[in-house]
């Protein structure tokens, strides 16, 4: 079972938080923080497994993570999952993101959080691995996106919702955000399957 999936950036800002077991929000924040500190300390060229200890669930659980450009992808899993398998699953997930967003970067995760979740939902469901075949995942995600498009997408939302969104006071956004090279470089790993 996968207990939690966390994605945060190099500064510990959570970009995707998915717990498959209920934790109160404060604990969630604490877990993200602690996980971040655990992971941050580690060099890129040391192993990707961490015994999570007291974080979630105790000694049966392991943290398995990968670091891509600015983002850490951390999976917290118990002993029924194969460590290398999960590493490959992270790779599959990131590659899928890359495919769906075309050169995914951290900003994609920020502005399309819902989509990231939808993709994740096709990979992992309720803590169990649902699908590992990337083509299948992409096909399902795209089919759902098409369905959404045929309904007119969110723009056809009730006027109420639209005006609500418009009324939100957003801080001034700079026109051109120079984000540098944020793209996640998906390295070519030996194929798993």
């Amino acid at each position, binding site marked *: *079972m996968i207990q939690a999936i966390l994605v945060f950036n190099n500064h510990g800002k*959570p*970009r*995707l*938080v*998915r717990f*498959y077991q*209920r934790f109160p*929000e404060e604990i*969630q*924040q604490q877990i*993200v923080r602690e996980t971040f500190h655990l992971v941050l300390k580690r*060099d890129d*060229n*040391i*192993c*990707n*497994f*961490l*015994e999570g200890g007291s974080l979630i669930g105790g000694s049966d659980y392991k943290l398995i993570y990968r670091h891509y450009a600015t983002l850490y992808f951390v999976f917290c899993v118990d002993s*029924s999952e*194969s*460590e*290398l*398998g999960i*590493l*490959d699953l992270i790779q599959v997930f990131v590659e899928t993101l890359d495919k769906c967003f075309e050169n995914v970067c951290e900003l994609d995760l920020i502005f399309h*959080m*819902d989509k990231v*979740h*939808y993709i994740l*939902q096709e990979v992992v*469901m*309720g*803590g*169990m*691995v*649902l*699908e*590992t*075949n990337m083509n*299948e995942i992409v096909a*399902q995600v795209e*089919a*759902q996106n098409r*369905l*959404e498009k045929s*309904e*007119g*997408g*969110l723009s*056809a*939302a009730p006027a109420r919702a639209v005006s609500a969104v418009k009324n939100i006071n957003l801080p001034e956004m700079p026109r051109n955000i120079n984000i540098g090279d944020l793209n996640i470089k998906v390295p070519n790993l*030996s194929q*798993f*399957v």
Partner: protein
Amino acid sequence: MLGYDISWAAFNIIEVMSASKFTFKRIGYLAASQCFHEGTDVIMLTTNQIRKDLSSPSQYDTGVALTGLSCFVTPDLARDLANDIMTLMSHTKPYIRKKAVLIMYKVFLKYPESLRPAFPRLKEKLEDPDPGVQSAAVNVICELARRNPKNYLSLAPLFFKLMTSSTNNWVLIKIIKLFGALTPLEPRLGKKLIEPLTNLIHSTSAMSLLYECVNTVIAVLISLSSGMPNHSASIQLCVQKLRILIEDSDQNLKYLGLLAMSKILRTHPKSVQAHKDLVLQCLDDKDESIRLRALDLLYGMVSKKNLMEIVKKLMTHVDKAEGTTYRDELLTKIIDICSQSNYQHITNFEWYISILVELTRLEGTRHGHLIAAQMLDVAIRVKAIRRFAVSQMSVLLDSAHLVASSTQRNGICEVLYAAAWICGEFSEHLQEPHQTLEAMLRPKVTTLPGHIQAVYVQNVVKLYASILQQKERDSDTEAAQELTRFMVERLPQFVQSADLEVQERASCILQLVKHIQKLQAKEVPVAEEVSALFAGELNPVAPKAQKKVPVPEGLDLDAWINEPPSDSESEDEMPKAIFHDEEQRHTKQQPPKADEEELARRREARKQEQANNPFYIKSSPSPQKRYQDAPGVEHIPVVQIDLSVPLKVPGLPTSEQYVKLEEERRHQQRLEKDRRKKKRKEKKGKPRRHSSLHTESDEDIAPAQQVDIITEEMPENALPSDEDDKDPNDPYRALDIDLDKPLADSEKLPVQKHRNADTSKTPEKEDMPVTEKKSKKPKKKEKKHKEKDRERRKEKERKGEDLDFWLSTTPPPAAAPAPPTPPPTGCLEEEPRVNAVITAPEEEYEESKRQEQDEEEEERDPEKKPAKHKKKKHKKEEKPKDKKKSKKKPPVNDEVEEPLENGALNEEPLPPMSSYSLLAENSYVKMTYDIQGSLQKDSQVTVFIVLENQSNSFLKSMELNVLDSLNTKLARPEGSSVHDGVPVPFQLPPGISNEAQFVFTIQSIVMAQKLKGTLSFIAKNDEGSTHEKLDFKLHFSCTSYLITTPCYSDAFAKLLESGDLSMSSIKVDGINMSFQNLLAKICFYHHFSVVERVDSCASLYSRSIQGHHVCLLVKKGEKSVSVDGKCGDATSSSATCWRR
């Protein structure tokens, strides 16, 4: 969401969830999955919405609902929706099926009652045509089995088949992991697994799969206690592969390799020791996790020879280590390594003591008590080292300010506890006791934790007593009085202690010293009496010994506490209760090996003043026999170490010097050995034996320690305390359900009645002859119960046998072949007289019938019962054909006839069934076969043929050829003509069997067929090789084209009502087997599944490979069975007529 609370929006989320558009619904469910949990009160409002979405025509609506539900399913939701989800498990879209299968695990967790009803269907999904669904089912079952493996042992054959056939690495990994959990329960399974696993190890290129295989092989090897011939080969293979992993530049592989290696280490240390170089290399790795793993491995690698070297290396790591966790880990590992199996590897205890002293210089460690325990242990057990230990401890006490800087509990200051005690207890070895006494009475001491101060106070008196004695011996009364004055002056600082224990001891001792002072003033010699307080030796006692002492006869522990048990023979005294508590609390924090002496601190002197304690284990032989096992210290053959180095080392010693000394000594010894060759054997590695005793070899030291192990022996009649470590709150415990037990009718998933009331009326209920049911009720209840019990027991046995059967045969395919002859009684298919009433509505199938008719004449295979009783050209009605084989039936069994009440479970042992039936056989080879359709390809069936070599020749170049008919053709490799055979892709050594698959394409599935074929092969033996042939006839009965497909009663009822099924019926007389048995047979041989069963009626369902529905209503009369069939495609209706 992202760590922020959004529960205030819960109701709005539900509103969005119920939007009709997918766009919104998806967002709603996403939000719900992030924020809902069991405590969300609005969640109960969602039940109907979710049910609606689950049954939505759009697969994505359903998918989104399932995904959402998987995150917030509650017991209530699980109960209410279990049935709907179960229906979805056989949805037409694999996308939905796999989600539904996965979510079942969550449902089981929340609503364990659903497990048994849903399990059969879940099991079915293991063989789902879609790999995604299959993998989901494997996933769920693996999760279930991980928690309660023994309930899933019976699935082993199925998983085994999957393992050998699947190519999906995910599935393979899961299955292999599962086998890892199952093998400890069933060693025979392990034996069976080894071969395919080693094959996988050799063949796979995926590291993850390789790793899991190695892991499971290790688990298997561990579970096999007795040696197998190829045992060591597998171990070697594993170790070899692991070495490759460890040497890999990928840190992940390195880590996992070490992890797996440590598992091997536990059972096969020898094979790992060969790779010591590798492990030591990993100790220098920059990655902490890898170093930790390597440390684990080191434990098993030390020997007398390399211990010092390894520990030296670890000590340098300790110095370099940053981060207390790693340092602490190193510390415990050093102690573990040194103290393992009773200090087996330590040849020089002085060195060990100095290592321990060096370790006290660590800052911020949490393992002070560990070091302390080791010090105490060594000092007590190794007599010869006491002098040295005491000198070291006094130095330590002197520099206590260094150590005591951190006063946190379990900090390094704990060693002072040990130091104080050792100095006090063995004060006769002290060089300058007065100095040590002063050190122990410094004002700074009062900042130490209470329990350490308490030990200080007690040991100050011991020291005092020994100094006093010394002074009096020298008749230095002046100095003695001076000493007493000093005590009286310093002790009050402890009397003021906040710690009760310290205070009490100090006050007591202060008064004692004051009394001595008075006596001294009168010039009375007191030293003798004072030291009598602490006379005698202490003895190690097993940590659990006290608990295990049986209550002496006549002692009633529940008796009034103020009446001391009169017959307690022991003269032991009770130690101060509070002191005793102190000890015990301390004990808990320590590994058992280290702490037996802790409990042993009972002084003879104290015994005099304290009352009876029946729990006390005496060190000296007592009248109670059972205590005599614990020998006194006198009996411990302590190694006599002739010290050749000056004992007093100025300042704290460094362990390094001992390493050097040790080397020198070893060298010296080697020289000596050379000199006296005759005594060659005796002296390896044993330093410091310069006396005539130096013939003692390594082995001699072992008994010195082992004696202490004996003290750990429990009183003979002590009961082993079984610790039930299962947590009663463990959610997985509820899922510990016996899945092999047949389903009872009461175990149904709750169905929401108001929703499908219209479909709940199933036609078979209408037809059910009520009278029949009534007429059968005369039996007594009790008898029934008994019978049921017996049946259930039998059922169980049978299960066991099945598994045994599977496990006892060697190669996988051989597991399947059926016993060629069915059991003599109760097999309905072969012998009944058949009255076939055939409804053949369509003319165009006459052709096929004719063909069948012809075939009827041919011999029938009893197991496949393809006898066809059709009359050509007579559509609608028919002629009872009293055909072949009117054998006598055995008398009808009472049990079988016995009616059942309230549909309680009525199981009876089913005869072993196998879908494989005999195809042909000669002296060389035996062929059994099974035909299976596949849903994916609607015009293909696969024939599985098991070839078993019965001769002692080697069979090769096997080729199978079949004479195609118009309807049925063998699928041949491209480019070959219809007359070419299909080669069998393997060879058969003598006695081996293997399974080959052949695909046939079918034009029409409505007719039965017989194909003639030949198997040609070359049999090679010592005398040469010969060409051989074996002819066979392959039967395709109509039911071969059916695929077991589950169906649910509501869907089934709809199907029947829809009216587009055509009808046919048949009545078979002379069935003398139980209904249960009959159903099982129909289901098994004809690929039907039971939809519903009421007493002696049941409706069955199946689907043909071309997707036609086939529904059956089977009714059991007195001695006959009537079968009504309805088929989706009118054409197949006739064809599926019941040939038996």
